[in-house]
């Protein structure tokens, strides 16, 4: 593996995770959209909301990660993609705003009717966004983007057979993984009836997603011959086979109500399609531009790799914690305190307000001296520190324990 392709592999890992996790979120929105009316529909929408609410933000950051890595490490390619595919990217962006809006607004709803309105108005974005992002992948895969501003047609680059097929596939696979996940979540909460409803949806969506995937391959055969060849005969084949096997195995597990392993296999099935595409696409980035040609300079690539590795050391343990708590159902708000608060009443003695006030004035004077009167850089650094000292000691003076309470 070369340095110039390393950041792209990281971006692809991010894209695969976004497709699985973000896809599951959009899938949950899809089921909210088609839930209909009535008590059963309310239960479906509630489950879809509550299972996703603690994790949706983290799931969406993967997209930001992909964007930032690509524009740092492959700037010219990013610029060409962004300007050529500005319409689908913009639609996806608006869709994400609406999806986030639904989560923000649901916090203020009081009745089932209000929740239904919020869910359905905003859930349309759950179809629009994955479709639009799928068309972007289709545009790149069928080599309809070349270098330039814009580098290709603003319309046919993403409204073409390959793009539409991959867009539909993105919606269907999101609905599928989401239904599998929600079946498992409902089972874990002991709601067998709801789990069975999602099970039916998972099986139906799985069959549809499989059919769409086959149709997409046929479309690729006619519309994106290079990718098709490399996917069915070349380096992409193992990933394609893995995806097919994982997809069928997931269906079998869902059929037997074994949701826990099904959840992971569904993720593998979706992620494998991304890997397959990447292997088939390599070494071409855009039409007439290889990954090597698109890569930034050596120092930037090293910097990106270092930043990602260090960031990942922080990120993955944190994500593991979040998912352990979420998948274990520990973040589901039960509406009442289930933890006995075991706090000790350790009142700090009333601090001397006057001392803190004097200290803060001293910091202020020193800060003005170092920052405003003096001109050297080191003096400014001390000055800034003094101002923070001013704020902290002033805060203690303005808010000593018990003062507000005693009013």
């Amino acid at each position, binding site marked *: 593996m070369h340095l110039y392709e390393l950041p792209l592999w990281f971006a692809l890992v991010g894209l695969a995770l976004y497709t699985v996790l973000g896809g599951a979120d959009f899938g949950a929105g899809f089921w909210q959209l088609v839930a209909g009316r009535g008590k059963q529909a309310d239960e479906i929408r509630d489950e879809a909301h509550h299972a996703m609410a603690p994790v949706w933000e983290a799931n969406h950051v993967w*997209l930001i990660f992909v964007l930032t890595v690509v*524009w740092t490490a492959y*700037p010219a390619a990013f610029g060409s993609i962004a300007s050529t595919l500005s319409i689908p990217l913009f639609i996806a962006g608006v869709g994400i705003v609406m999806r986030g809006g639904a989560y923000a607004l649901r916090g203020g709803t009081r009745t089932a009717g209000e929740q239904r309105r919020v869910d359905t108005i905003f859930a349309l974005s759950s179809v629009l966004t994955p479709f639009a992002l799928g068309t972007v992948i289709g545009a790149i895969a069928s080599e309809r983007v070349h270098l330039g501003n814009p580098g290709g047609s603003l319309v046919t680059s993403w409204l073409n057979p390959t793009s539409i097929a991959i867009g539909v596939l993105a919606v269907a696979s999101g609905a599928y993984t989401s239904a599998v996940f929600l079946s498992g979540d409902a089972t874990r909460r002991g709601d067998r009836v709801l789990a069975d409803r999602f099970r039916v949806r998972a099986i139906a969506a799985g069959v549809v997603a499989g059919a769409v995937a086959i149709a997409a391959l046929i479309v690729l055969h006619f519309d994106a011959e290079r990718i098709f060849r490399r996917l069915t005969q070349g380096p992409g084949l193992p990933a394609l086979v893995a995806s097919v096997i994982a997809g069928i195995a997931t269906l079998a597990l869902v059929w037997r109500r074994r949701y826990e392993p099904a959840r992971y296999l569904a993720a593998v099935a979706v992620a494998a399609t991304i890997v397959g595409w990447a292997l088939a696409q390599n070494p071409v980035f855009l039409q007439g531009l290889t990954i090597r040609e698109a890569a930034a300079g050596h120092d930037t690539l090293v910097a990106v790799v270092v930043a990602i590795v260090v960031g990942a050391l922080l*990120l993955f343990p944190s994500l593991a914690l979040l998912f352990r708590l979420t998948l274990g159902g520990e973040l589901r708000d039960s509406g009442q305190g289930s933890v006995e608060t075991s706090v000790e009443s350790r009142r700090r003695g009333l601090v001397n307000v006057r001392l803190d006030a004097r200290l803060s004035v001293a910091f202020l004077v020193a800060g003005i001296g170092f920052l405003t009167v003096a001109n050297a850089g080191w003096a400014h650094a001390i000055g800034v520190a003094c101002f923070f000292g001013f704020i902290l000691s002033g805060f203690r003076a303005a808010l000593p324990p018990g003062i507000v309470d005693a009013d």
Partner: protein
Amino acid sequence: MTHLAAIVAALGPGEQKYLSQARQMQALSFAVHIPLVAFGIAFPAMILFVESRYLRTGDELYRTLARRWSRILAALFAAGVVTGTILSFELGLLWPNFTGTFGSVFGLGFAIEGFSFFMEAIFIGIYIYGWNRLSPRAHFASGIPIAIAGFTGSLTVISVNGWMNHPTHFRFSDGRVFDVNPWGALFGNSYFWHELVHMYLAGYMVAGFVLASAYGFGRLRGRWARYERTALAIPLAVATLASVAQVFIGDWNGREVATNQPTKLAAFEGLGKTTKGAPVHIVGWYTEGHVEYGIPLPHLLSLLAFHSTDATVQGLDAVPPADRPPVNVVRYAFQTMVGIGTGLALLSVVYLATRIRRRRLPESTWFYRALVAAGPLSVVALIAGWVTTEVGRQPWVVYQVMRTSEALTGADVIPVGYATLALVYLALAAGVAWVLLRLSRTPV
């Protein structure tokens, strides 16, 4: 590498038809996002302070307050996530030649910011949904990464802005970059620390005054129990102290601009000609090289910028007209920021004096009326401050290296996008306002 020259040349600037719409669309997106950033910077720390008081005293009031605030934080953070996503899209959608040409220099800042964003999103999920599920100490601990990430996130984003204003650590010729040192460009830049401190304090001012103004409004309506007094005193303490410090931090910012971006400073003050012993004008209107109808304060600009009443301050005439920013926009944004900032600092001194010397909260109704105004005004000052520095950088997107017009997309669909985004943001703003109103009336 030989291909790269052809590549970047091929990317090139787009048509200029929609430059002003693109800039307005970008400005709208920032104006919506930046107040949310202010809350991202300051609100987690305030909530954690309240929760720490609960851990210390076991007083349920603090727990209730922290919980209610954390619900507000959740709604604001959701809006911040999605509006921030829009911004990252727009860097490519509106300015592909900027990202395409300089992505390898500044992009790293956003890549690191992405991780801050991740940590915020992950721990907000745990914190908000963990109130009843985690032990009190574990719950408090889960909030700490949110506060840290709020700071590191703004640090990396502002490092990019600092680089755009003071681009270093690369060579640029024939439309492509050479010898890029991304770490140096972002963090080895002397011209960004003042901006970071300025924005960090602004975050505390905005979050503090907006919260305090809501409870101040409640007091005018007669809601003034111990809960409301506590909820007012904490953010107000932070905001008022930050306001006093901001006077001096702002002055430092002005001096940095005077040294590094003299044309921008000249636009702040409407200084047409290079002047020895330059004055400051309050209000008035810049036209044909000077400020008309303004109130002059002789020598003050020289004194503020260079600590000498006779110092020479470079005027707008030092650069050709095509290289000057739109003076009146910058100047009025600057005057708005400074005017509101001064007013908030005066209000702060009144508050702190009453609070610390008399050990009580102010009792005058006028104080609370002013406080109600202070919340929205602090948001106006925040946006005016960003207009000052961003419009003040024009016509450059990368100062004296690339013009904003050269960065523009060639995809001529901007007006439709602009209109759509404006409508969506209007709906989002209405929605968030509705939620906040609901939350303010819903007991935990």
